[in-house]
């Protein structure tokens, strides 16, 4: 049979080593960097479309397309006073002189001005354009120098994202006339293999919707020579099948940025095939937590929230479920983040202490062991989450047992992600705890999750993600400082105050920071995962074969 198949030519040929096949579990809806933000799209575009500046694997800010990071110290950032007396920022951007789009056209400040103009328009339909939203105007000095004028003093001034190719996209935008038509007509959508859309070391040369994206070297890339003749990003949505594809050699690697195998799958694979791949676990900003519903009278008492956290043996959970790879969290900022505050209150496993706190809050154990208040009402709360992720369900089951041990009855109610995020969280329809994760950019102002104006209500059209209904005026004031203060020492004081208030008041029960789990071939060198949303592909030219 085998001989017949070989003779018939159906047995698969060996793949050349100058190809790298990356298996991912989802496919981007389109390749426009500012429309429909998706992890898999940002990951893939990291090879092909570079931002002006980003954060590196050590979580420090770095220049990618720019020649020098603008700072107050080097004079490229200055505070200016607007005609109305308000303070604003003027930020000089200097691009590297030799950058080109993959059709040979130079990357210039015209691209910067065009992107800023479109990105600033609230009706553009763009959704991840926070920096551009703050930029009022751009003065072009020359082809590589421009001054961006921010409407206010804004700490996002040095986070300058990807540029759009003005020579390709301006005619499309002008012809479309409005956002809805532009979204349909953009070249990133209609012809994603157009070379001029890309300025990174690779460009997209083949795009098969739902199946795979092929990248090949950009002939005009001025930097380090890319290590592969071809990179294929192949979509295999079923992660068991993705695992089998790794083992069969059809796929060389799978990334850890949330679009590959889950942490438990990688751990299982490491046990079964310890020598076949390199397993890279990178601390990340992915923050697993339990939102509390502060409208619930039971959870409104801070003693109850503290007791709940103390009843969870997080260390053992991390050790037993993921070989100790979950890092215990005290707040939403990861320990590697430069703005992380040391010395936060830590609530270790202490069931006796938890029972004491419950009693102080008026909850005493009944004959069945379940806590009851003075009226005899049982302590019952629901724990909501999403279906389909085995590790999440395991955590919930263990948490349910541990909370029961201190007298808390937990009802687990899981639902499809679209229902959980689109209804339950959005409309604050959970009555107890909600289990999910956030992925943050390091040192990014946390207004969306902590701001009082970010509590979803009918008035704000259910916008924002302060699902807990946490209203802390001191935190609100500190938030404003972290958004506008350019003095690092003063900003750090605000960051510390916010984390301290968060850890003391516990509107959210902090659980863990989840690492990225990458499976890469032994022969791949120069692979540096970052642990945040400026993915490893932003340095894809460093990926080389041994």
């Amino acid at each position, binding site marked *: 049979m085998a001989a017949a198949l070989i003779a018939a030519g159906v047995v698969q040929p060996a793949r050349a080593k100058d190809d790298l096949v990356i298996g991912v579990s989802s496919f981007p809806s389109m390749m426009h960097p500012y*429309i*429909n933000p998706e992890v898999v799209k940002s990951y893939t575009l990291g090879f092909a479309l570079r931002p002006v500046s980003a954060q590196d694997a050590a979580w420090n800010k770095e220049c990618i397309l720019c020649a020098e990071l603008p700072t107050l110290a080097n004079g490229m950032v200055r505070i200016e006073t607007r005609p109305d007396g308000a303070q604003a920022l003027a930020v000089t951007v200097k691009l590297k002189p030799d950058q080109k789009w993959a059709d040979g056209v130079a990357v210039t400040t015209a691209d910067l001005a065009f992107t800023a103009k479109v990105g600033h328009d609230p009706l553009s339909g763009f959704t991840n354009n*926070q920096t551009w939203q703050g930029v009022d105007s751009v003065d072009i000095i020359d082809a590589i120098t421009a001054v961006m004028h921010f409407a206010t003093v804004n700490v996002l001034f040095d986070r300058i994202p990807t540029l759009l190719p003005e020579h390709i996209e301006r005619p499309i935008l002008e012809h479309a006339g409005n956002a809805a038509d532009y979204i349909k007509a953009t070249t990133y959508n209609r012809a994603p293999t157009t070379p001029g859309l890309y300025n990174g070391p690779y460009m997209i040369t083949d795009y098969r919707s739902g199946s795979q994206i092929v990248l090949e070297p950009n002939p005009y890339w001025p930097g380090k020579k890319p290590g592969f003749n071809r990179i294929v990003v192949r979509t295999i949505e079923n992660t068991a*099948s993705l695992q089998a594809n790794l083992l069969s050699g059809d796929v060389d690697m799978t990334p850890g940025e949330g679009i590959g195998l889950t942490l438990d799958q990688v751990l299982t694979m490491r046990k079964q095939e310890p020598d076949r791949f390199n397993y890279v676990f990178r601390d990340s900003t992915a923050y697993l937590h339990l939102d509390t519903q502060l409208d619930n009278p039971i959870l409104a008492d801070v003693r109850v929230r503290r007791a709940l956290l103390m009843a969870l043996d997080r260390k053992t959970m991390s050790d037993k479920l993921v070989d100790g790879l979950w890092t215990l969290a005290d707040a939403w900022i990861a320990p590697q983040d430069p703005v992380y505050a040391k010395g936060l209150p830590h609530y270790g496993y202490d069931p006796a202490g938890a029972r004491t706190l419950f009693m102080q809050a008026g909850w005493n154990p009944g004959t069945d062991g379940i806590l009851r208040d003075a009226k005899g009402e049982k302590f019952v709360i629901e724990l909501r989450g999403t279906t389909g992720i085995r590790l999440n369900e395991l955590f919930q089951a263990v948490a349910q047992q541990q909370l029961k041990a201190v007298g808390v009855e937990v009802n687990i109610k899981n639902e499809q992600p679209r229902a959980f995020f689109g209804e339950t969280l959005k409309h604050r329809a959970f009555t107890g705890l909600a289990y999910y994760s956030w992925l943050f950019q390091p040192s990014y102002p946390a207004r969306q999750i902590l701001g009082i104006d970010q509590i979803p209500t009918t008035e704000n*059209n259910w916008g924002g993600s302060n699902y807990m209904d946490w209203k802390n005026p001191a935190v609100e004031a500190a938030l404003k400082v972290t958004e506008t203060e350019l003095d690092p020492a003063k900003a750090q004081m605000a960051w510390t105050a916010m984390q301290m208030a968060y850890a003391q008041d516990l509107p959210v029960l902090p659980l863990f920071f989840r690492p990225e789990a990458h499976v890469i071939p032994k022969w791949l060198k120069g692979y540096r995962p970052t642990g945040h949303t400026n993915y490893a592909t932003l340095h894809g030219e460093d990926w080389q074969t041994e």
Partner: protein
Amino acid sequence: MTRFIINRIWQALIVLLVMSFVIYGLIGLMPGDPLDIMIASNPGATPEVVAHLRAIYGLDQPLMLRYWHWLMSALMGDFGFSRIHSQPTLEVLGPALLQTCKLLIASFVVSVVLSLVLGIIAALRPGGFVDNTISLIAFAGISVPVFWLALMMILVFAVKLHWFPASGMGNIGDGGFMDQARHLIMPVTTLALANTGGFIRYVRASMIETLRMDHVRTARAKGAGEGRVVLVHAFRNALIPVVTVIALNFGTLFSGALLTETMFAQPGMGKMIYDAILGNDFNLALTGLLFATVITLLSNLLADLAYGWLDPRIAVA
């Protein structure tokens, strides 16, 4: 005959109209707004931006109004724009349909041929060793979950033996006939095995019943050979109920090969429709499901016409 076909076309149009209304309404009733998930991790998505995006995608209008606009456009040949693929729906549908056709037709031919052969053989000696063995295979085919079968195929033939690629539709830079065939072997086999079991049972039952009929007994009494009795006198009559089942299955398969497509990373109609429903992509889900409905109705029409060919008395009626 012409009047029959015209009547069936009218019926099909009414079914399609009702189906489009029901499908649109059901998708609209699903919890969650796709935009909420899309912007869930976006710190800059102010309520104004969300409201504007909702307007861009037409999600700010009442459901019935959206349906009415879609219906009017569809009648003019414009089936709308797919939100999750950012392309006109027909442009998304085309490649998915092509992929499904390759997978479906190949697996359908394999499973129909296999089931006819094995079903007839099993029916010749009901309760015998051969019948029991074939029935065992048929029940195994019916019982084994498709995703498990697919995974086992990948583990055995791709991981262990390295005979076939584990997934995908073709190698980059190749994509020739042999390359595509290589990528299709395992999904086609999986889908064929999953369908063959049920078909075998129908063919076997129908053949056993027909072989007991008077006209078969008469043929035998007239001295016709066993081969002629089975293939000419029994088989043709036994096909009538089998054709119904196969026709119904054909339509279902057009939208129902989801697991096979997902496991082998061969995005076709099933995956496309599933993603469209989960992503609240009304235009694409509707167009895909209506297309699957058309295929089902067409299959049934062909089955009705086949009845007339198999049994002229039905045609006269």
